[in-house]
């Protein structure tokens, strides 16, 4: 397989619009890298530059230390799986996977070997004689992946391959793709706008916004230690709660005024707030829904981090309940146990787990402390 280096990659269109700005990334052999971000952030454009389907305006792309900027897609030793794939309706599974190789005049014996090996990896061996109309959605998706696997590329590039599938099939195929990655031992670059897909599939995730890389990290680090407000809000579902907080230091002790409440900040975070000069200033406090507790035990053990609010919406998801409420002019979400007795219209107390809060600079959005 292969290592990939993107060094100061830029993409500027003729009208001056800069879609990707100073993109730097090193992808190791066998890594499963995810590019994630909102629509228009430059993730697909970056992928297409790696593929050679889009010119690189500036910077260097290297695959296995060879500069690829001016190399045609067919010579880059890559294979692609894109969103709007189609199978050749009149061809069997075998022929669907073999067709690209036949067009490239690959010898028959080699085609047979490649197709059967790909079919084995994808559990399609018993379906080789079937036509697409006799396949399920998941099987068709696997055939589309098989077309890429038979090329035996150094790198697989996938652009939202699951976007056209229904929710249930998407979940199933995520597992399949993960298994395929393990079986192939392949280097994969995967683009998605779905942060859940990103978190479950990637070894590392590149979060992008406005053509700029916001953070490159493992899923766990992105979740626990976001670099800025955008990453904190984008990763995690439901989204992190953000609320303005005024920092008040009293010696080494720090409290934050949130709405009408004064919440005690733990020592480790307090020091960071004081040392960074935020005493008396307004910052943005972030707290994930699962760290907003309505249980009596939490409320009693954390009396200095309690707020009170009226529940606007109660949403039962089976294994958990989401409670939506307004506090200090902000809509917030709590993810609580389904045994909660809270209901819509109730005024309840919530304890915020201050050890798990994040603080962000209000102007720049950068993280002060996680």
């Amino acid at each position: 397989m292969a290592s990939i280096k993107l060094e100061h990659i830029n993409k500027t269109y003729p009208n001056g619009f800069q879609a990707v700005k100073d993109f730097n990334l090193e992808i190791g052999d066998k890594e499963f890298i995810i590019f994630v971000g909102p629509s228009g952030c430059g993730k697909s454009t970056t992928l297409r530059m790696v593929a050679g389907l889009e010119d690189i305006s500036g910077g260097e792309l290297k695959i296995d230390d060879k500069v690829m900027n001016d190399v045609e897609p067919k010579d880059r030793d890559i294979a692609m799986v894109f969103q709007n794939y189609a199978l050749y309706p009149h061809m069997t599974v075998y022929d669907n996977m073999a067709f690209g190789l036949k067009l490239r005049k690959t010898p028959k014996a080699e085609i047979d070997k490649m197709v059967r090996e790909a079919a084995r990896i994808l559990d399609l061996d018993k379906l080789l004689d079937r036509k697409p109309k006799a396949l399920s959605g998941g099987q068709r998706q696997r055939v589309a992946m098989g077309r890429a696997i038979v090329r035996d590329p150094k790198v697989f590039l996938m652009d939202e391959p699951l976007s056209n599938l229904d929710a249930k099939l998407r979940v199933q195929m995520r597992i399949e793709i993960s298994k395929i990655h393990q079986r192939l031992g392949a280097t994969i670059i995967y683009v998605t706008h779905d942060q859940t897909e990103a978190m479950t599939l990637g070894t590392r995730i590149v979060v992008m916004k406005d053509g700029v890389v916001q953070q490159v990290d493992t899923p766990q680090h992105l979740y626990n230690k976001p670099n800025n407000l955008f990453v904190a809000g984008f990763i995690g579902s439901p989204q992190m709660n953000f609320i303005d907080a005024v920092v008040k230091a009293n010696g080494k002790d720090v409290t934050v005024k949130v709405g009408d409440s004064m919440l005690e900040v733990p020592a480790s975070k307090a020091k960071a707030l004081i040392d960074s000069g935020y005493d008396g200033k307004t910052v943005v406090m972030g707290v994930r829904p699962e760290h907003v507790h309505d249980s009596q035990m939490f409320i009693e053990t954390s009396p200095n981090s309690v707020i009170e609010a009226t529940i606007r919406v109660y949403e039962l998801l089976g294994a958990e309940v989401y409670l939506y409420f307004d506090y200090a002019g902000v809509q917030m979400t709590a993810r609580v146990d389904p045994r909660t007795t809270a209901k819509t219209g109730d005024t309840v107390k919530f304890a915020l787990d201050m050890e798990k809060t994040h603080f962000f600079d209000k102007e720049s959005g950068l993280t002060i402390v996680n």
Partner: protein
Amino acid sequence: MEQDQELQRLLNELKQDTGITFAVTGECEDGREETIAQLRKLVKSYRTGNNREYFLQRVLNGEVVSSRLYQDAKRFHINAGDLFRVFYIELCQEYDIDVQAILKSLFYPQTGIFVIPMSSSQFVILKAVGKRNSDADASKIAYMILDMLNTEAMLDARVAYGTAAGQLEFLQDSYREARLAMEIGHIFYVRERVFAYDRLGIGRLIYELPVSVCKAYVKEVFGDNIPESLDLETLTTINTFFDNGLNISETARNLYVHRNTLVYRLEKLQKTIGLDIRNFEDAMTYKIVVMAVDYIRYMEKRK
């Protein structure tokens, strides 16, 4: 000697194409050249006359007279009663793979689909569609063609499509629409790869204007100082603001910034370009003048 070989070659080709054995008699030297020329014409005429792709190329280019159109369409098994949509494909890179085979295989064995090479880098797919065929259906097909060219042929491409043509005479109009959509896409929608003729928006309007009119408008708005290219953050802010219908709250949410940050950016923009895009009139003016500038640059480059 060479002439004899050429003569024999042409006779063999004619036999292959027609199944008829032709013979040339007579010994006049001067006559040989003329005979070869006539045989060449005969081969070409037979091939082009019996070639469906060539016929459809001529139909799309408006080169077939109405009186022959339906007659020849019948000969080539083209159902004149079908509603057709023209998908015009431009390949953006050199290639050494049978692109036509890929395109044909995508739809085979459906009837009413014809893949026509218009040049080495341009293809047309003529597809019979049902009366209920919507723009969404056409868009889906266009994106499918694009993704297949990207992944199977490993080629960058653009796809444009016109409105559906209910009669064969209107195919040339549909083709013209698709090509126009492609050109307008090149000028105004550079990030896109699929262009629909009836969704070109204001791009089509500006394209129809004389360059002089566009220049006068740009001068009216900006005077002699067209603003330097705006930075990415500003451009993204503007585009997102427009996408969210000039709604500040929604835009701030989509940009993951505070409302006040967004207002600050818009006020800064107003100082730079003299237009407050929070105001509908100014937003419209900004949008149009930027497109006019792109159009002027494109036309000047084309010269």
